[in-house]
């Protein structure tokens, strides 16, 4: 049985984590798309955010935890690699992306 989602075909599915990998051949390249539930990460981030201290004390601060595919698709990984800190900070300060933040405050 082949499971399809539009032109995507299910390539693998992990029952434990709900992670599924979809495949699509665009005529030239094989493209893989990874879907996974992020409820856990969102609720964990929220917990961490609530318990994190407001003050910026100490050396290292975890500012955000972003699911890998969102980090890659939104361009934040590339922007960070290229040193485009403005883009990264704008992304992290954007209230739309609050779910990924693990510490309050303006970056």
């Amino acid at each position, binding site marked *: 049985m082949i499971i399809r989602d539009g032109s995507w075909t299910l390539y693998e599915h992990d029952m434990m984590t709900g992670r599924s990998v979809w495949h699509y051949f665009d005529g030239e390249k094989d493209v893989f798309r990874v879907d996974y539930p992020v*409820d856990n990460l969102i609720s964990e981030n929220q917990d961490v955010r609530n318990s994190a201290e407001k003050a910026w004390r100490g050396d290292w601060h975890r500012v955000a935890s972003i699911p890998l595919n969102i980090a890659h698709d939104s361009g934040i990984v590339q922007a960070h690699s290229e040193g485009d800190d403005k883009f990264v900070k704008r992304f992290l300060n954007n209230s739309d992306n609050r779910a990924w933040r693990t510490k309050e405050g303006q970056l």
Partner: protein
Amino acid sequence: MAALANTFTTNQAVGNREELSDVVSRITPEDTPIYSLIEKGSTKSVHPEWETDELAAPAANIKTEGDEYTFGAISPPDRLGNYTQILRKDWIISATQEVVSEAGNVQKRKYQKLKKGVELRKDVEFAIVDTNASVGGATRELGSLSTWIETNVSRGATGANGGFDTPTGLTVAPTNGTQRAFTKTILDSVMQQGFQNGANFRHVSASPYVKSVFVTFMSDSNVAPFRYAVSKGGERNTIVASADYYEGPFGTVMIHPNRVQAGSAGLARNAFFIDPEMLSFLWLRKIQEDKDVAKTGDADKGVLIGEGTLKVHNEKGLGVAADLFGLTAAS
């Protein structure tokens, strides 16, 4: 209670249908964090070489009035190189197996080709993160990341750097030291060395365990207790892979869990600090299917092959925290 005599059970039944899940789950994720991060280029030879030059260290520069000139010697740049490595995956399926109906359709050509392609990409990641020194000749091997790095390092007791050996033109594998737990001191030490040597670390690739240790480095009250929230219905009680963004004294870094590095203790013991500008992967032959494999017999053969190498532009821009407990608190 045992079943009553003559109860006809499934053990005796003959025609019961098998039930086999149609969705095949494999827990070998195809993520290749470092390979995905770095730039991909091309090479035209099996031994691409490049040069690195550096400024002299700053020093007091005070001259006398009316002084006669003297001329210093020029030190030539370092000439570095790496060898390409041939990576291949192959399969052969009988023509009958190709057409029979099968649950999951895993043993079919199309699926095998896909799967081998994904595996090959992960092998590239493996070649980057393992500790294989470069080798020339017919069975060429690319020098992995950890064999290059010798400047921004933190190693366990008795551990020693490898590095590029100019006379032989090959990299040398580092010597493993005593394993230790990853600590904030180790992190800060590598970050500081990098900062002083002009590196601009932006990414850290480490085994998922090392990444989880990272979280505990935050100053006291910032340490969020490690919680595994149970989501709706109690299902999917596993944290998904996420990139963590950290602000620290020597810059901001993004930490990526690297599942290829979790493959064995030998790979997990290194955490790599990466400036993506200092690293690229050069392909001599991109991964592609060899379509000219001769057909013999009643079977279908397939070969995927690629050849490429890792280019370390300047190892001073990279760092490694080696000899860490990378899988558990004691391994």
